[in-house]
């Protein structure tokens, strides 16, 4: 292994963007919590960022091919972990999502995301045909469906949904045929009513609320409405860091996590939102650029898996904050407070770095 893995080969642009976003996140977490019983949360977030960064650097040193080689093992471990969480998992907010690991509660589905990215990257890389055959498409679908099913049982609709773009983007890049795509979409549409039937009441409520938010402003439409009020009242320049009434008085729901962008929009205004969204766009485009320059198909699929999952997170979260989408509990990567999510994102970006460092075929 003589690929160039020197300091200069790291994607400094990407790292700059990442720390820019993280910095804004920490700032807003501080602003959202400094005057409450949650004060000090931004310090914890910084520790998670440091830890994530460390793990990312570690992962980038490891050749991703060796990771891909062990894919079946990872996949198996992932499935077992997801089963374990259902059996012995820690219940919070009515859902079993957490496994105690070394004194901290680890959200297992975050690991599952990584494993799916790796698994699908290897799967699609091994498809050598120009066009994706129906058999391969089905195999990919099954590989994704099993963990999705297990995650839905927790239940965690948001995380389960996040896995879909990975397979969708992968299939698109692997040359899915239009008619297959159409059939898949149709099947999904047909599944919807059945899926609706199996939704938890709170999930159904979220969807109906999304469709008619004014019907019950203090009930389940509350979160969306308060988020929109926070965003809208921010205006162009915002009310200033620490001065957003919606944020400071707790009207914005989970203002340091899922709705952190609403808090930011209130305090830093459209200007702040603009900068943030430009950073995220730059991040995603940078990932795609890295995918283009990947040494092999596996690397490309790996990076695009990460891009798909991060892009989906960003789009869904931002859309939720301004009421374009129902409340799903999908955090904003690199900004929302949360250890597991932060570690996942950095590990995923570690994979990207890994691919980048080995982009020059020797």
């Amino acid at each position, binding site marked *: 292994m003589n690929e160039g893995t020197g300091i200069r080969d790291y994607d400094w642009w990407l790292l700059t963007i990442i720390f820019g976003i993280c910095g804004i996140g920490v700032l807003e977490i501080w602003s959202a919590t400094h005057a409450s019983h949650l004060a000090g949360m931004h310090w914890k977030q910084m520790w998670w960022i440091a830890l994530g960064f460390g793990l990312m650097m570690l992962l980038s040193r490891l050749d991703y091919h060796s990771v891909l080689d062990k894919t079946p093992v990872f996949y198996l471990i992932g499935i077992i972990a997801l089963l374990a969480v259902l059996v012995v998992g820690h219940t919070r907010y009515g859902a079993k999502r957490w496994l105690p690991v070394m004194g901290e509660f680890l959200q297992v589905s975050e690991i599952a995301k990584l494993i799916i990215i790796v698994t699908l990257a290897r799967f699609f890389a091994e498809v050598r045909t120009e066009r994706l055959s129906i058999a391969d498409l089905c195999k990919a679908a099954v590989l994704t469906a099993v963990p999705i099913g297990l995650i839905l049982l927790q239940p965690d609709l948001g995380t389960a949904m996040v896995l879909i773009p990975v397979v969708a*983007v992968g299939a*698109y*890049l692997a040359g899915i045929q239009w008619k297959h795509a159409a059939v898949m979409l149709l099947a999904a549409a047909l599944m919807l009513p059945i899926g609706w039937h199996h939704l938890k009441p709170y999930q159904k409520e979220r969807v109906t609320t999304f469709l008619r938010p004014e019907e019950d402003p*203090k*009930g389940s439409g509350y979160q969306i409405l*308060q988020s*929109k*009020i*926070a*965003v*809208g*009242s*921010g*205006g*162009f320049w915002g009310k200033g860091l620490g001065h957003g*009434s*919606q944020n400071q*008085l*707790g*009207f914005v729901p989970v203002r340091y996590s899922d709705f952190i962008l609403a808090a930011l*929009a*209130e305090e830093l*205004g*459209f200007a702040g*939102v*603009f900068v943030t*969204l430009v950073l*995220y*766009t730059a991040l*995603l*485009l940078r990932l*795609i650029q890295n*995918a*283009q320059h990947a040494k092999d198909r596996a690397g490309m699929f790996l990076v*695009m898996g990460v*891009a798909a999952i991060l*892009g989906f997170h960003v*789009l869904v979260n*931002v*859309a939720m904050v*301004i009421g*374009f989408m129902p409340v799903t509990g999908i955090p904003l990567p690199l900004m929302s407070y949360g250890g597991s999510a932060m570690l996942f994102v950095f590990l995923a970006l570690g994979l990207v770095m890994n691919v980048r460092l080995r982009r020059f075929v020797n």
Partner: protein
Amino acid sequence: MRLTVISYTIVGLMALLLLGFWKLQIIHSDLYAQLAERNRVRSIPIIAPRGAMLDRYGRVIVDNYPSFSVLLLRDDPQQVERLLPQIADGLSVTLEDLEQQLDAATALPHFQPIVIKPEATPGDVAFIESHRADIPVLEMLMVHRRRYPHDGFMAHVSGYVGEVSSDQIEESGGRYRPGDIVGKTGLERQYNDHLMGIDGMRRSVVNSIGREVGRLEQTDAVPGKPIRLTIDYDLQLVAEEALVGKKGAVVAVDPKSGEVLAMASQPSYDPNDFAVRISKDEWQDLNENPERPLLDRAIQAQLAPGSVFKILMATAMLESKAIPADYHLFCPGSAEFYGRVFHDWKKEGHGDVDLHKAIVHSCDVFFYNVGKQLGIDRISFYGGNLGLGHKTGVDLPGEEPGIMPSEAWKERVFHQKWYPGETISVAIGQGAIAVTPVQLAYMIGGIITGGRFHQPHLLLSDKAAPEVDFPISDSTVDTVTEGMYGVVNEQGGTAGASKLPGIELCGKTGSAQVISEQGLKKAGKQAALKDNAWFVGFAPRQNPEIVVAVLVQGGEHGGEAAAPIARNVVKAYYDKKQGRIPPQQLTTQAVPPGIPPSFAANSARNSKPDDGAEETVPTNPDPVPTKPQPVSTTPQPTPPATLNP
């Protein structure tokens, strides 16, 4: 290639999301800024206290006491819904009542709290304080509750306050807001703008669970201004005590200024009942009570004046010079006019009668003849100019004008010709004529001061009240005054029993039939309604200082039922003036408004209007007195040209 498609897709979607932010933050930012402000700010009114009512010496008659109302904050309907049973239990009100009040308030914006219990007990206060954490939807509002004297003391004059009605809000042109407490009757209404303050507002910042986390600017309440009345508490007390258990009114006026020194009406009601929230039943009881306690008899009872009217007749006779001043006749006890016999109240007659004796003995036959010679239009001319048939303009809402009949009046109202026989009845204050007690006080006060009529008023002011001059010659004034002096002080005067040693009390009695003789026949023999007793007195003989008009409905004889009341008021006036009785604490401080125990004890009997104390009104409740005649047309007598003096 495919990666490029994905890149463009991402850029496109991001642009779309930015557009979403643009729409919220730039296009609709004002709307959301408002919503955010409404979220964080809670406004709680600071109620301005109403101005007190003081008597002429500054003694407090009506004031306020601090009280708490229980407010329900409705920002979170689900929370309210959940806590409602607990609240009902804690405040000892029924759940239905609370639900009703909530339903009634659905039209109001959610952030506006509603009063669910106007008068919080100490227990309620303790309940709210101890449950601040788990029942955060309750708040206490400091209010100033009106405190009136007990047992209806001066109730008709003071009036009462209540929540502003939707009609009043409309009329006010934006000055009143829903929920405001305004004067409904009496002086409370007359001087509402002066008495009413301007409520303030406390604005505080609340967090998402409704807890107050900070204060914003506070608009302090501007208290209402007090009013100083012309009423003398001591005289008012005498007047009220004298009327206990009776149905009638007392009006005492200073004829030189029009200042009302006392004004009482019984039966009364307790305005304190209105100060909190009067129940429908209580209101209905008061309204439908046959004794009509809400009627202010001093300004609203329109009744025949009876023989008190003879003073006006005497004045008209002398001033018009249509009849010589030394006119006299022999009274045999009755006289025939236009084919009908009119009786004197004294069957055996008064014998030789001149004007002086006719006043002192209240000879009917003498005034029948005077009336016949004057004619109704001349009587009406003087009646109108001496204060009858139109409002005196006293500063109280709801004054009635009474009726001063004339030919034109009958033509206008009944489209009938005036019969000369009717003039004979009117000449002794019977028939179609109707007056209010305040009118009689006004009329007599004007006559005995030489025709200077001062508008009666209750608000003490440096400015003189509007005055109407209708000059009356000194000789007429002397003759009338001497006659009225004789009524009280001469042998055979109709109010001789009310003579006051050392005080020149003058007056005129009246006993007016409640119902005409024809009406009496219609009503059947059993309907023996007792006459209304009147007395209008003044003192002293020269430069009179006080005029007192007294009405006792069903009192029968003016000399027996009404005159002693006027006498007591005048006596109190002089006792006080001469320092014989110490006035009730002549200071502005620490006077508990209300009535001394003696009065309270007496009137306790009176407070129940249906306890049979008023057997004078049997099955037929007051057909004449309180039901106004067709009075919508105020007769303004214009004298025929030939009658001009």
